[in-house]
C-alpha cells in the first residue's frame, strides 16, 4: 500500500499542478493580473517529498515523548507551540500565495467543521458541495486537528487508513470551477449513475483498499460539483485580500532576500569606493574643469540674492576647502585632503591611454574623465588652414583680410583673452594684511603684470589701432558686424583702461557708417533687426556709461568726428546712430547747464558746440519727419522722440520753429490716435508720453495741442 501511494504521487503532483496552473490562468484572465511576477515556486523546494513518511511509531522516543533530563534544547514542540500563532499566519499566507482561487483561509477552518454528516453526504449521491467538501476532510479530521499547525503541510494521522498521510497544501488547490465545468459535472452526475455507484462501492466496500489518488479524485469530483454562486462575492473579496497579502509577502520576501547582504561591505570599503568615484570628479582647478557649473552657480546665487532669497541654489561640490561654510567642516576637510592626494597621485602618473602587460592577451584601458578614449580621428591637414588664421599674431599694419573666417578667428581670440582675464580677476591676490605687505606686494605686482600683458594682447586682438582707410570696413568694425563680436564688447570694456575705451569709442564713431546695424529698421530683415537689437543691448549701454562721465571737450570732439565722417541723414535714420546722437547731445546739454562735477565749459567751447549743433541741424533739416518709421511698420519710435527732445533743448527759437513745423504732423497724429477710443489705455498713455518728451523740451504739453477738426 505505501508503495502504491508513493508511485502515484508524482502523477498526482503533475495533475494537481496543471489544475493549479489552469486556475491561476483563469483568475489572471478574470482580474487582468499578471501572476508571472508572483511566481515564488522556487521557494518551495519539494524537499518534503523525499521524506520518509512511514514508520513514525518511534516518534515519541525521537521527539521528546520522554519528558526527562535532556533539557529544553531539543524541545522544539514547545517552541513551536509558542510561536504557533505566527506559524498559523504564515501558513495562511502560504496558501494565499500558492492559490489563486477563493477558498478557505486555512486548513484550520476546515478542521473546525463538523464532520459528522460525512457518510450521509456520500450516500445521498446528489452533489451537496460545501457540505461534501468539508465532510471529506472531516473524515480525516476527527483526530488529527493537532497536526495542522505544523507549517505549510499537514501531517495527518488518519484513523481510517491507519498511516500518516502527508498532504501537500496544494492538494486543496482547486478552487471553484467554471460554469462549463459545473454543468459538465451536473450532467455527469445526472446520467452517470454507475460512476456514483462505483464510488459508493469504493467507499463502502473497499475502503481499506482506497489509495490516496482515489481519494483525491473523489475529492475533486465532489468539490467540482459545488455551486459557486453563493460564494462569488465572498470569493472576490477574499481574492482581493489575498492579492494584497501576496504583495506584502512579496515585498517582505524581497527585503529578507537582500537583508542577508547587509553589512557585506565595511565602512572602509565604502569609503574606498567613494573615493574612487570622487577622485574622478574632483579637480584642483574647478574653474578649469568645472567651469560651467561653477560660474552658473555663482550667477544663479547672485540672482537669488538680488531677489532676496538668501540660500544658495546648490553647493558647488568641488570648491576650495577654505571657502566652505562651517557645519561638518572637519570631515569634509579630511575628505578634501584625501581627494587632493588622489588627484595629485593621478597627476604624477604619466598619462597613458592603455597599458599592455607582458603576456596579457589584451590591453588595459586607463581612460579617465580628463583623458577619455579617443573615438574620432580628425586628420591634421583639415585643421591647419584655420589654425593659421586662429593663431594669435599681432595685427600687421599691412593689408588685412576681412574674410569671414579670419574675422571669426579674431573674435575667438578676443574671447580667449577675455576668458583668461576673467580667470585672472578671480585669482586676484587678496589685499595685503598687516606685516605681510612685502610678500603680498610682490604677488600683487606680479598679478598686475600678468593682467596687463593679457589685457594688452586682447587690445591688440581687437585691431582698433589699425589705421583707418587701409581696409574697408575697418577690422574692428568687421568684428562688430558679427553678433559674437558684439556680445564680447561689454566684457572687453571691463578690462580696458579709460583711454583705450575712448579710442574704441572714437574708432566706432569714426566708422559708424560701415556698421551693419547702421541702417534704418525699415531696410533690415528679421536677422538685421535682431542685430540692431543686440547692438542696442550690448554696445550702447556701456558706452553710454562712459560718455555720461566724459568731459565737454571729449563730447565735442566725438560729435565733431561723428558729423565729419558720416552721412548724418543716413546715420540718424538708424536706431543706433540716433542713440549715439542723442547721447552726445544730451550729455553736452547737461554739461552746458553746469550739472555734475565738471566745470561749466568756457565760451570758446560753447561756441564750438553751437557751431557743431548748427551743422548737424542744417544737415538734418527737412529730414526730421523722415526719422519716424513708416506708419505701417508699427515700430517703436520712442528713441526718435527722445532725439527730437535732445535737439529741441539746444535749439534756437528759429530752429525750434523749424522742428515743430516738420514734426507737427507726427505730433498731431499721435495725439489724435491716443484720443480716439480704439486704442488700449496703456498704449495711448505711451503715445502721449512720447510726444510729451519732445513737447516738454519746448516748454509745451500734449494737452495744449488742439486737435483740428478734419
Amino acid at each position, binding site marked *: 500500500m505505501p508503495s502504491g501511494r508513493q508511485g502515484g504521487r508524482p502523477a498526482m503532483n503533475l495533475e494537481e499542478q496543471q489544475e493549479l496552473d489552469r486556475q491561476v490562468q483563469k483568475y489572471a484572465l478574470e482580474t487582468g493580473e499578471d501572476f508571472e511576477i508572483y511566481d515564488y515556486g522556487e521557494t518551495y523546494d519539494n524537499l518534503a517529498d523525499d521524506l520518509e513518511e512511514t514508520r513514525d511509531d518511534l516518534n515519541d522516543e525521537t521527539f521528546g515523548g520522554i519528558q526527562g533530563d535532556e533539557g529544553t534544547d531539543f524541545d522544539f514542540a514547545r517552541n513551536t507551540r509558542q510561536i504557533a500563532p505566527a506559524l498559523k499566519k504564515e501558513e495562511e499566507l502560504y496558501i494565499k500565495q500558492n492559490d489563486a482561487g477563493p477558498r478557505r483561509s486555512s486548513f484550520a477552518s476546515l478542521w473546525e467543521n463538523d464532520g459528522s454528516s460525512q457518510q450521509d453526504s456520500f450516500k445521498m449521491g446528489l452533489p451537496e458541495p460545501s457540505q461534501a467538501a468539508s465532510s471529506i476532510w472531516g473524515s480525516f479530521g476527527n483526530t488529527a486537528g493537532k497536526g495542522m499547525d505544523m507549517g505549510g503541510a499537514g501531517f495527518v494521522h488518519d484513523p481510517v487508513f491507519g498511516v500518516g498521510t502527508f498532504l501537500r497544501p496544494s492538494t486543496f488547490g482547486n478552487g471553484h470551477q467554471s460554469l462549463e465545468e459545473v454543468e459538465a459535472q451536473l450532467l455527469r452526475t445526472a446520467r452517470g449513475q454507475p460512476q456514483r455507484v462505483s464510488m459508493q462501492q469504493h467507499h463502502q466496500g473497499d475502503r481499506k483498499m482506497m489509495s490516496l489518488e482515489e481519494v483525491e479524485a473523489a475529492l475533486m469530483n465532489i468539490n467540482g460539483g459545488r455551486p459557486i454562486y453563493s460564494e462569488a462575492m465572498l470569493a472576490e473579496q477574499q481574492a482581493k485580500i489575498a492579492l494584497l497579502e501576496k504583495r506584502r509577502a512579496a515585498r517582505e520576501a524581497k527585503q529578507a532576500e537582500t537583508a542577508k547582504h547587509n553589512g557585506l561591505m565595511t565602512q572602509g570599503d565604502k569609503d574606498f569606493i567613494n573615493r574612487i568615484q570622487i577622485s574622478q*570628479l574632483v579637480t584642483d582647478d574647478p574653474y*578649469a574643469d568645472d*567651469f560651467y*557649473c561653477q*560660474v552658473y552657480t555663482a550667477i544663479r546665487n547672485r540672482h537669488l540674492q538680488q531677489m532676496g532669497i538668501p540660500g544658495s541654489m546648490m553647493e558647488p561640490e568641488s570648491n576650495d576647502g577654505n571657502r566652505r561654510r562651517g557645519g561638518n567642516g572637519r570631515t569634509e576637510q579630511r575628505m578634501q585632503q584625501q581627494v587632493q592626494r588622489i588627484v595629485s597621485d593621478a597627476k604624477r602618473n604619466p598619462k597613458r591611454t592603455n597599458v599592455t602587460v607582458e603576456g596579457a592577451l589584451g590591453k588595459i584601458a586607463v581612460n579617465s574623465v580628463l583623458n577619455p578614449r579617443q573615438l574620432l580621428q580628425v586628420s591634421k591637414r583639415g585643421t591647419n588652414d584655420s589654425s593659421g588664421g586662429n593663431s594669435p599674431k599681432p595685427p600687421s599694419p599691412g593689408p588685412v583680410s576681412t574674410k569671414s573666417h579670419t574675422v571669426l578667428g579674431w573674435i575667438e581670440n578676443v574671447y580667449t583673452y577675455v576668458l583668461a582675464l576673467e580667470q585672472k580677476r578671480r585669482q586676484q591676490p587678496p589685499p595685503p594684511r598687516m606685516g605681510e605687505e612685502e610678500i603680498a606686494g610682490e604677488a600683487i605686482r606680479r598679478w598686475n603684470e600678468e593682467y596687463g600683458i593679457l589685457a594688452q594682447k586682447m587690445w591688440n586682438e581687437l585691431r582698433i589701432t589699425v589705421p583707418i582707410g587701409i581696409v574697408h570696413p575697418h577690422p574692428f568694425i568687421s568684428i562688430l558686424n558679427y553678433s559674437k563680436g558684439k*556680445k564680447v564688447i561689454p566684457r572687453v570694456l571691463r578690462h580696458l583702461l579709460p583711454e583705450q575705451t575712448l579710442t574704441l569709442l572714437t574708432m566706432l564713431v569714426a566708422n559708424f557708417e560701415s556698421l551693419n546695424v547702421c541702417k534704418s529698421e525699415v531696410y533690415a530683415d528679421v536677422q538685421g533687426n535682431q542685430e540692431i537689437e543686440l547692438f542696442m543691448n550690448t554696445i550702447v549701454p556701456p558706452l553710454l556709461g562712459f560718455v555720461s562721465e566724459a568731459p565737454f571737450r571729449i563730447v565735442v570732439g566725438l560729435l565733431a568726428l561723428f558729423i565729419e565722417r558720416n552721412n548724418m541723414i543716413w546715420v540718424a535714420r538708424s536706431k543706433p546712430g540716433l542713440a549715439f546722437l542723442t547721447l552726445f547731445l544730451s550729455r553736452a546739454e547737461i554739461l552746458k547747464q553746469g550739472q555734475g562735477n565738471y566745470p561749466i565749459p568756457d565760451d570758446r567751447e560753447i561756441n564750438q558746440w553751437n557751431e557743431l549743433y548748427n551743422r548737424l541741424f542744417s544737415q538734418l533739416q527737412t529730414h526730421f519727419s523722415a526719422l519716424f518709421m513708416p506708419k505701417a511698420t508699427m515700430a517703436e519710435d520712442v528713441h526718435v522722440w527722445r532725439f527730437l527732445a535732445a535737439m529741441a533743448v539746444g535749439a534756437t527759437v528759429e530752429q525750434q520753429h523749424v522742428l515743430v513745423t516738420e514734426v507737427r504732423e507726427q505730433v498731431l497724429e499721435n495725439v489724435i490716435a491716443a484720443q480716439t477710443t480704439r486704442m488700449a489705455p496703456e498704449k495711448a498713455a505711451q503715445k502721449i508720453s512720447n510726444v510729451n518728451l519732445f513737447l516738454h523740451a519746448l516748454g509745451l504739453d500734449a494737452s495744449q495741442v488742439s486737435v483740428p477738426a478734419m
Partner: protein
Amino acid sequence: MLFYSFFKTLVGQPVTVELKNDLAITGVLVSVDQFLNIKLDNIKVVDEGRYPHMLAVKNCFIRGSVVRYVQLPAASVDTALLQDAARRERQQPAAGVRK
C-alpha cells in the same frame, strides 16, 4: 567634463531622457556622474500606452551609454556661458601641452 559640469547644474530640474530603445522618460534629475549615468525621480514614460510595464516604476537609474537625447528646460541653460565653457574646454588640453 563639460557635459558633466553642465548636467550637474540641472539637478532638481525636470528633464526628458530619450533612450536608444525609443523609450522617453520624464522625471526630475536626481544626480549625474562622469559617465553621464542619470538618476531620475518621479518618472513618467512619455508614451505610457506602449510601455504599460513602466507604469509602476517611480524612479530609475539610466546608464549613460543608452541615452540618445536629453530634453532640457530652456530656462535653466545659459547658452552664452556654455559657449565660454566650450572655449575653455578647448583651451584646456592645449594649455596643458604648451606647459
